[in-house]
C-alpha cells in the first residue's frame, strides 16, 4: 500500500509490521512522533504490544532489556541526549546479546542546545557492540526496521536504525508500506535460544571472572563479523520479496569514476544530483553511500574504492582530535590495500548541528578535491574562521 508519510511514521509502520511486543520509551524531540504513533497503534489495536512510557531513557532501555530477556520482541526510539543517557544500558543490551531494535533520530549533542541533525550521537555508541544502519529515505527506514529485527535475531546483537533529524524524520515522502503477510513470511516470531523461563529458572547478569570474560567479548566480535554476510543476505532476500534490494553500501555512477564521494544518510540524495551534474560536465565523479556502519564493511569499501585516484569522505560528525569518523574508518580499511591501489583521501566535516549541506556545497567540495585544492587531510566546511584555537568557542560579532 502506498502512503505519504514522514520518516518517523515510517519507523512506526516498520515496528508495527515487525509485530514488536514491547515498546518502552520516553519522549524527546525530534523522535517523539515515533512513539506517539506507536502508542496510537497499540491503543487502536493495530499492534498487539505493551506500550510503556517510562520516566527516562535510561529506564526505556532497561525496559527493553527486561522484555527482550523474557523473549519478547522489544523496540524503543530516542535521540541525542536520550541516547547518551541510555549509554550504560546500551552496553548491557549488546553484552547480554539481546536483539533489541532502536530507532535513533540523529540530533546534535548539547551544549549549545540543538535539536537539528548530526551524527555524533549515534557514532558515540560505535564501540558498544550494537549494529548501526544509516537510512537515506523513508522507504529505506520502513524496510530497514524490519530487516534490523531479522538480522538482530539471527546474530543476537541489537541494532540502531538511524535517520536524520527533520531532513528525514519530519519530511513527508511517498512510501510503499509492505503487506503484513509479506512481512510475516520474512520475519518469523522471535524464538530466543535463552530467555527467562519459569520452567527452567536461571540467573542473569552474574559476575564473570577474568578467566571467562574475554571469551564473551570475543563471541560478540565474531557475531559482528558474521553479521556482515547476514545483512547482505537479508537485504537480498528483501529485494526478492519487494523489488527493493539493499546492500552494505550503495554505489551510484561509480563506473569509471576517478573521484568517489563517500557519505551517509540524506546528504547522499543531494550528492546524487551533484554527481549527475558533474558527470554531464565531463568530470569522472561517483558516489558511495555508507549504509551499514557496524559491522563495518571494510572489504566492500576496499573493493569499490581500491584503485581510484581520489576519495572524498563527507562526515556530518567529528571525532574531536582525529578527523571525521567515517573518514578515519575508511582510511584504516584502505591502508590494507597495496600501495599502488591506495587512493588519495580527503575528508570534509560539514552540516553539524543541522547546518544545510546544499548541492552547491557538495559541488564545490568535489571540485576542490578533483583539482587538488583541499590541502588539509580534513577541511571544516562553511565555518567561521577561528583564529585563536583556545578561545575560538566564543565567536563574537
Amino acid at each position, binding site marked *: 500500500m502506498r502512503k505519504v508519510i514522514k520518516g518517523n511514521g515510517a519507523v512506526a509502520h516498520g515496528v508495527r509490521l515487525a509485530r514488536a511486543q514491547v515498546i518502552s520509551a*520516553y*519522549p*524527546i*524531540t525530534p523522535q*517523539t512522533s515515533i*512513539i*506517539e504513533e506507536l*502508542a*496510537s497503534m497499540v*491503543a*487502536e489495536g493495530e499492534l498487539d504490544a505493551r*506500550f510503556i*512510557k517510562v*520516566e*527516562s*531513557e535510561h529506564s526505556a532501555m532497561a525496559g527493553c532489556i527486561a522484555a527482550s530477556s523474557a523473549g519478547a520482541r522489544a523496540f524503543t526510539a530516542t535521540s541525542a*541526549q536520550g541516547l547518551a*543517557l541510555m549509554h550504560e544500558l546500551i552496553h548491557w543490551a549488546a553484552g547480554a546479546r539481546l536483539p533489541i531494535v532502536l530507532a535513533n533520530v540523529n540530533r546534535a549533542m*548539547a551544549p549549545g*542546545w540543538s535539536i537539528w541533525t548530526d551524527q555524533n550521537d549515534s557514532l558515540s555508541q560505535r564501540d558498544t557492540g550494537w549494529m548501526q544502519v544509516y537510512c537515506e529515505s523513508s522507504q529505506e527506514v520502513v524496510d530497514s526496521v524490519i530487516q534490523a529485527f531479522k538480522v538482530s535475531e539471527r546474530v543476537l546483537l541489537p541494532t540502531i536504525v538511524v535517520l536524520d533529524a527533520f531532513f528525514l524524520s519530519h519530511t513527508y515522502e511517498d512510501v510503499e508500506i509492505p503487506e503484513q503477510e509479506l512481512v510475516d513470511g520474512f520475519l518469523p516470531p522471535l524464538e530466543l535460544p535463552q530467555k527467562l523461563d519459569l520452567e527452567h529458572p536461571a540467573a542473569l547478569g552474574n559476575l564473570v571472572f577474568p578467566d571467562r570474560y574475554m571469551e564473551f567479548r570475543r563471541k560478540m566480535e565474531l557475531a559482528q563479523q558474521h553479521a556482515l554476510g547476514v545483512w547482505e543476505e537479508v537485504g537480498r532476500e528483501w529485494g526478492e520479496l519487494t523489488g527493493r534490494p539493499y546492500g552494505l553500501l550503495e554505489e551510484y555512477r561509480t563506473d569509471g569514476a576517478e573521484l568517489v564521494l563517500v557519505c551517509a544518510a540524506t546528504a547522499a540524495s543531494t550528492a546524487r544530483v551533484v554527481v549527475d551534474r558533474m558527470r554531464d560536465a565531463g568530470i569522472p565523479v561517483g558516489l558511495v553511500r555508507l549504509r551499514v556502519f557496524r559491522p563495518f564493511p571494510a572489504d566492500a569499501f576496499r573493493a569499490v574504492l581500491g584503485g581510484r585516484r581520489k576519495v572524498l569522505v563527507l562526515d556530518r560528525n567529528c571525532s574531536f582530535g582525529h578527523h571525521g569518523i567515517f573518514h578515519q574508518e575508511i582510511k584504516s580499511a584502505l591502508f590494507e590495500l597495496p600501495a599502488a591501489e591506495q587512493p588519495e583521501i580527503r575528508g570534509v566535516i560539514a552540516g553539524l548541528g543541522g547546518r544545510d549541506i546544499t548541492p552547491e556545497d557538495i559541488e564545490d567540495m568535489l571540485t576542490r578535491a578533483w583539482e587538488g585544492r583541499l590541502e588539509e587531510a580534513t577541511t571544516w566546511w562553511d565555518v567561521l574562521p577561528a583564529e585563536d584555537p583556545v578561545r575560538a568557542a566564543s565567536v563574537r560579532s
Partner: protein
Amino acid sequence: MSPDVNKLTVKDYKTDLKPVWCPGCGDYGVLNALYRAMAELQLEPWNTVVLSGIGCSSRLPGYVATYGFNSIHGRALALATGVKTARPELHVIAVGGDGDGMAIGGNHFMHSCRRNLDVTYILMDNEIYGLTKGQTAPTTPTGDKTKSSYYGNPEPAVDPVELAISVGATWVARGYSGDMKTLTKLITQAIEHKGFAFLNVISPCVTFRGDHQFKEIKEKLRYLPEDHDATDRTAALRYVREKDVVTTGVLYRVEEPTLGDRLEHIRMVAQGDGEPPTTQEIINHFMPLS
C-alpha cells in the same frame, strides 16, 4: 523626592529575550511573580543563579538577568547542589517542570530535600510534558487521555508537595500561577528560607491540557486556614492529594541545619581548634596498630 537610583526594579531582572511560551501559558505568571519577588528582596543579580533542566518551563533562566544555566534534562538540582556547595554565599534558584523534576530528575529531588540543600526549587506543574507536545507526566491524573495514553493514563499521579514533605524538605508550599499576589509572596518567602524551599506552582498548559483549566482551578482555589500550624507535618499532609480543592500557601515550614551547615560542622570537628594536621599526622592516624 527622586526615586532611589540604586534601587533595583522589576525591569532590572528582565533580559532582552522574549519568552516563547504559548499565549496563555501559566509559566508567564511564575516568571512575573519571580521578577517581583526578586525586586522586593533587592536580590543582587550578580549574586544570584537560576538553574534549570529541560522542558518548556526550563527556558526560564534565559528570561532572568542573573547568572543562568539551562542544563541537562532532570539535572537542575544536581547542578544546584554543585553551585551551592562551591559558592554558599550565592542565592541559588532551581526551576523546572513536573516531567523534568518528578520523572527523569526524580531521584535528585528526593536527595535535595533530604539533605536540606539551601536552595529554592520552583516546580511549574502543568501535569503534562509540554515541550514534546503532550505526553503523560508523573503528575498527570489517572485516566487522562494524552498522546501517550490514548485510552487514559493507567498510572496513579504523584503529588510533589506530599513527596517533598515526606522526604525532608524544610519549607513546602503550593501556589497558583493565576494568583500573582499570593505567588509573589510565596516566592519571596521561599527565597528567604534557609534550607530546601520547595514551591509547587499549579501552572496550566493551555495547549495540551486545555484553556478551561484556568477557570476550573479558579473555582477550586482556596487559601490555607489562618490557624494552620505549618510546623505540624501531620497538619500539612492534610492538604496533599486534593481532588475537589486546590489549597495554596505555606503548608510546612521548619528550621533544620542545612547541608552546608552540616559540612561546615564536620570540617570544624575534623580540624579542631588548632592547626590543620600535617600529612605525616594523617598517615599516622590511619596506620594500623602494630
